[in-house]
């Protein structure tokens, strides 16, 4: 996914002379071809994120479309003020290419684990929050971003995720994709929890539970038109996200439900990383399992919850 996203940025740059790449010390060899062919539009900025955001805003004000590529935590936490004031306030066309959304950088510890980025970014006016589930969806989203007015946060997963998105389903910022209509249960995913949820649905089917899936490539804008009827018809609704349970997908959906989009006897559960800095390093899959986000854990959690209720 990461590679496909950057390749798409490269192709966009070949097509559109205003596309600029800014990498913040993210390793040699990233987009070598871009650098070779369009050196005047390729910048590597050292280990210094904050001013890069202001500078990207300046470039955008001057008619450029900068793609800023760095690690998600440094982009969102360190540069929050710059993103809010320099980019969002003026609604500039800056694209934030955030590597390691969620627990991708599990081995590097809490400094690199981006578990609060969706909450931070969706709180900002004008920001679009894009969390693709696979490389194809990433490519569609990056392409769509070229024609989109305003800033876009692009949450980049580790890569190598199975392709589940379908070209015929189309793509638009703010458009949810219903992979399967709900029965007793509706799962709602964003990013790679789409693939996890699809497997959970298979596992639940074996237990006689009929679950549907609504996948949100963009947590913001939230597709209320698609979500609200689904929320009204499903007795059980669970969000699944590789993110803190505070302020992310679960928070966004809970707000819709609290505002009235609910089944008369509806129950809601937010499945995500609890309110902790993940402990233990390890690999992404280790931490996903530790915090109940692998297929088995989600299946167990949902089954137990539905039985108790």
């Amino acid at each position, binding site marked *: 996914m990461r590679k496909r996203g950057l390749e798409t940025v490269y192709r966009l740059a070949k097509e559109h002379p205003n596309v600029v790449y800014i990498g913040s010390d993210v390793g040699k060899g990233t987009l070598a071809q871009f650098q070779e062919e369009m050196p005047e539009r390729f910048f590597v900025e050292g280990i*210094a994120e904050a001013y890069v955001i202001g500078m990207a805003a300046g470039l955008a004000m*001057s008619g450029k479309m900068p793609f800023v590529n760095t690690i998600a935590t440094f982009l969102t936490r360190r540069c929050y003020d710059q993103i809010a004031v320099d980019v969002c306030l003026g609604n500039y066309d800056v694209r934030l290419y955030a590597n390691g959304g969620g627990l991708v950088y599990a081995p590097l510890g809490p400094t690199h684990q981006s578990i609060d980025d969706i909450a931070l970014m969706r709180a900002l006016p004008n920001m679009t929050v894009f969390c693709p589930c696979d490389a194809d969806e990433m490519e569609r989203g990056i392409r769509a971003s070229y024609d989109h007015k305003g800033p876009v946060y692009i949450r980049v997963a580790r890569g190598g995720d199975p392709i589940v998105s379908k070209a015929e389903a189309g793509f638009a910022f703010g458009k949810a994709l219903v992979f399967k209509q709900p029965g007793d249960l509706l799962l709602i995913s964003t990013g790679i929890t789409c693939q996890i949820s699809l497997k959970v649905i298979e596992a639940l089917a074996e237990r006689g539970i009929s679950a549907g899936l609504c996948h949100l490539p963009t947590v913001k804008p939230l597709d209320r038109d698609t979500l609200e009827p689904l929320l009204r018809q499903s007795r059980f609704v669970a969000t699944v996200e590789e993110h803190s349970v505070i302020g992310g997908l679960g928070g966004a959906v809970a707000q819709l439900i609290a505002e009235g989009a609910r089944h008369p006897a509806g129950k809601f559960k937010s499945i995500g990383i609890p309110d902790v800095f993940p402990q233990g390093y390890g690999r992404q899959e280790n931490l996903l399992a530790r915090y109940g986000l692998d297929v088995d854990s989600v299946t167990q959690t949902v089954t137990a919850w539905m039985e108790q209720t």
Partner: protein
Amino acid sequence: MTKELEGLARKARIYALTMIYHAGSGHPGGALSAMDLLCHLYFREMDYDPADPGRPDRDRFILSKGHACAGQYAVGCLAGCLPLAELGGFRKLGRKLQGHPHVGATPFVETSTGSLGQGFSVAVGTALGLRHRKIEARTYAMIGDGEIQEGEIWEGAMFAAHHRLHRLCVVLDYNKLQSDDLNRNIMGVEPVANKFRAFGWRVEEIDGHQFDAIEGAFGGFNRETGRPTLILAHTTKGKGVHYMEDRPHWHGSVKMTEDNLRQALTDLNCNPETIGKCRDGTIWEESLD
């Protein structure tokens, strides 16, 4: 020539102080220290059209030390960028002139500032973007001395020199005082000139209240072909008002009493009639002679 600028700067100081008095809050100290430099920028240096603030080839100015905006608004008004009556709306709900420069609200404000360090980076990106688009316009920014304690300044400084942004001119309003105290008592910033030189910048060190010196420094910038320029302008915080000069209290945000206003305007050689107009707000009805 200098006399004309001195007259404009005096008027701008009167306007800024009156704005802050009527708003009930504001930052007079840094607005007064920057005023002569702002006047030179708007009346002698920059190429722009007040009637067409979005002209693509205009010179850009970013007040990175956004809290000094009363100075920019007053000078902008004198330069024809704003109707005089707007100054009376300073810091008022829904009006054009907010407590920090706000893009969209004020026609000649290029970007919102107020979070220190950030306007500098935006200026760097603006200069780079203009160069990419082969637009000959110059980019100016004004920063404060406390502001250079922000790491972001030095990140942007490194970038600007590395990319030889010679059409970028940053003016440091070096009044030596930040909100609470002298820089040197909080976090020393010296040697400023040598730091910027070491970062690859051309540095012009001047008295920021001497118009001849200011003109000379900008002349140096305009002749430069390979490096960004820092104009290190030694200034006096609260310049022109004796009880404010070099006193951190008047950094802001402060409320000025009627007595404060009268004393300040007396220092600026205002007669009782003008002081009265400033006090009751009728000053915004017709231009000051």
